[in-house]
């Protein structure tokens, strides 16, 4: 199954189960969880079912396109169900079958792994899903987001699309994944990996990004005061990315790092709180 067909297949599968098929966020995110369709929608009482793929950017994972298993930009497929049905695990396994993975012939397991995002003030209980020892999905029942106890609970299923593609296509390198018949993953992104690795590790201007971080911090505080929640949250996404760049660039000390994480966390919590007050 080609890479684009995997996305299509999952879209079809989750559409039939009542999810709206959503779009990625148009700014750099470290995980599909950052998309407002997850972060904000799992707050408050309203039900929500949605699925989307999300390009995720993790500057620190850059390997110049030389490591077959590690890249700084990859694709997640995100399913968010609020509240989840009782047989959610079975539905998820069905989605694997639907992709052509006969689970009875393999070793598919839910292995304890409780997810936590320090910057988002969020944590949940769940597993990583193993397919013959390969981690292909993160499966989480969110308990808190932005420091707020959730009710109802949202279940987040995050498929690692490249991992699944490598398994289905029997490839040993991400770059060899067939996007369609002619084009490989690496044909499109190899240059990206090389150039962005160079940028994040060596070229990115620390002053610029530190400055951006500070200015953006003030801006978000102002936006929260004015109750402009969507722009404020957009700012949280951008400030997180600037932090990720600085972290990869190796210009923040461990203690500074901890302080910056706490500051982003504070912003995320404030936004979440305001969102509930206004729209929850």
């Amino acid at each position, binding site marked *: 199954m080609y890479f684009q067909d995997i996305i299509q297949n999952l879209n079809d599968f989750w559409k039939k189960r009542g999810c709206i098929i959503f779009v990625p966020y148009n700014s750099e995110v470290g995980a599909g969880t950052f998309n407002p369709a997850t972060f904000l929608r799992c707050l408050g009482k309203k039900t929500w079912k949605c699925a989307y793929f999300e390009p995720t950017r993790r500057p620190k994972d850059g390997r110049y396109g030389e490591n*077959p298993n590690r890249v700084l930009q990859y694709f997640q497929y995100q399913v968010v169900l609020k509240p989840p049905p009782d047989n959610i695990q079975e539905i998820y396994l069905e989605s694997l079958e639907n992709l052509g993975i006969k689970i*009875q012939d393999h070793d598919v397991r839910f*292995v304890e792994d409780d997810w936590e995002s320090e910057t988002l003030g969020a944590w949940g*209980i769940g597993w990583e899903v193993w*397919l013959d*020892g*390969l981690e292909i999905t993160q499966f989480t*029942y969110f308990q808190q987001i932005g420091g707020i106890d959730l009710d109802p609970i949202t279940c987040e299923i995050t498929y690692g699309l490249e991992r699944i593609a490598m398994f289905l296509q029997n490839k040993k390198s991400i770059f060899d994944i067939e996007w369609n018949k002619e084009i490989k993953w690496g044909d499109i992104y190899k240059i990206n990996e090389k150039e962005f690795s160079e940028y994040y590790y060596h070229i990115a201007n620390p002053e610029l990004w530190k400055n951006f971080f500070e200015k953006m911090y003030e801006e978000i505080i102002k936006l929260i005061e004015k109750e402009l929640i969507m722009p404020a949250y957009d700012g949280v996404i951008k400030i997180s990315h600037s932090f990720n760049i600085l972290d990869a660039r190796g210009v923040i000390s*461990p203690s500074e790092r901890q302080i910056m994480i706490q500051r982003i966390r504070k912003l995320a919590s404030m936004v979440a709180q305001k969102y509930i007050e206004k729209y929850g």
Partner: protein
Amino acid sequence: MADFLFEIGTEELPPLAIKNASLKLKEEFENIFKQEKIDFEKIENFGTPRRISIIVKNLSEKQKEYIEEIKGPPYHIAFDENGNPKEVLRKFLETYKLKEEDTIIKEEKNRKYVYAKVKKGGRETKEIIKEKISEIIKRIPFPKKMRWGKGILFARPIRWILSLWDNEILNLPLPFPVSNKTKGNRLFGNKDIEIKEVEEYEKILKQNGVYASWEERRNLILSKMKKICEEIGGSPEIEEIQLEELTGLVEYPGIILCEYPKEYLKLPKEIIFTAMKSHQRYVPVISKDKTPLPYFVAVINNKEEKGKIIKKGLEEVLIARLEDAKFYMEKDTEIPLEERIESLKEITWIKGLGSIYDKNERVKEISQFLLKISNLKGDENLLFKAINLIRTDLTTEMIRDGKEFTELEGIIASEYAKVQGKEEKIIKILKEYRLPRFLNDELPETEEAKIISVSDKIDTICALMSTGYKITGSKDPLGLKRTLYALFYLLIEKEIKFNIEKVIEFNYELLKNKKIELKTDKEKILREIFKRYENFLEEIKGIRYDIVDAVIEGETRDLYLIFKKAEVLQKYFEKEKEIFEKIIIGQKRVFNIIKSEKTDKEVDENLFEKEEEEVLLKKVNEIRPIAFRKIEEEKFEEAFMELLKLREPIDKFFDNVFVMTDNPKIRKNRLNLLHLVWEVFKKYGDFSKVAI
């Protein structure tokens, strides 16, 4: 009599919590049955990733009937002077729906009370289970619980309840479907399975790929693993904790042997094993001489017949991880460890306590100091060379990656030193200097590693304590208690001797010179260390805290020698309790008398009036040099034997001599004599500290 089967069906539970949860489920039922006086023969418990369950054998249908006496009002309030019941009694009887004949009068502390005899029990066991079941489920402990929308907290969502009373469903008031159905192994079809009879439970589950008994699964995993390894002349390298985790990760004990290319055997053993164990939960296979073989064992939740396809996947995942390690290692070892030293200045050790570089510099100075004042011997040049290189691996990609290899901090520096052709001793020191990391961990062998380990630990302890860091209850994020216990363990096991007071003073000055903000004084630090040492000796070595206290109050400031002295006293305390206590009583009397008056210490024999005074002085003068010498030679048992010889003269002295006599000269002289006795004992310890 009936058999009762109860199963909580869940989504996959945390593997290391299952065994205990299943045991607790059993205990909760046992407690309820005991409290409610319901007879049963026995309870078996089961646990797999997707269920914890129990079977109660021969459970009584009803509670026992019994009479409970309930205390009511005092007699004089319940009845008037003529013995007629008053309003108070009427109300009391009403509450329990009783008549006057159902009461008895009992006397308590000269007061008469009315007691009601209430018939209790006889309720249906089923009704009691229904009443208590919610409570039972809530009380099952897990390290972390979650909400999922059913108003109940549990480790993972509960999805079904199997409740079978002989061959009938016992309906229970729970927010989950209650039936006679359970689920089989996900990979065997995940079917709903009906259980018709309690005794069929294990058998039917097995047919559906679930080995419900924890012990059976664990033992099967281990024996199959050993067998499969034997076939290639190896054995599994597995610890109990990993075996427990693996048991908690599968319902079916499937074991397969996998291979990986021999070329990866060039990687250090620790790296290969970490790649296997820490994330993948694979079990390394080693040969008879303990070297790694190019095999590993995996536990799978599926039948071995399916192993062929699964094996390929498992192997590929490991190879990817080993490739990562190889890539890091090649890249890392291009840079000599020496060139990494500078970068340690940029890595903060602990906030407010400077960089790793600063810490290493302090370790260097403390090590040098220890060479002078301890019994540890080592080559100073070698020592300095090694200390320069410790923690340089913090700057390597392998450690900085933040993934599984991070736990190899310490080992990596040593392995890279090997690759870079450093001398054998340096490699060994780098590998050992962190040992022991905790109580009962491996110990360093080389003298230099011992010195570094002691210096490094003392510096960590002193620095943390100086900032006011405290261990409170179970909260100790920086692991101070672990470091303290590792240090104590090392000192005792390797018989390392030095004056801890001097080293702490030295260390404290070093911190002060580095302009680190110190919030605690060194006396406080020392007191805290001694307090922890007392706890350690009591908790780990079984020595009474007051015995340790007595020894610490003596002249020794050497932790190892304190232990040796205390050990002798503890032994005597256990073996010859009576004699030991007499000595203590004697010393307490001595202490209580001499503390009241100052003395000039010279004893004048001419002022003696009684024979007992002469005998005591003679004995003290005779024993004093011997006891002191024995203590100097660290022959504490022999020294204590000498002190024991003073017991009789002391006891006799107190029996026959009145110290606080009116004659001031004689009184002073007697006090001087006792002071002399006190001094001899004090060399060993302050025996008045021991409680009896």
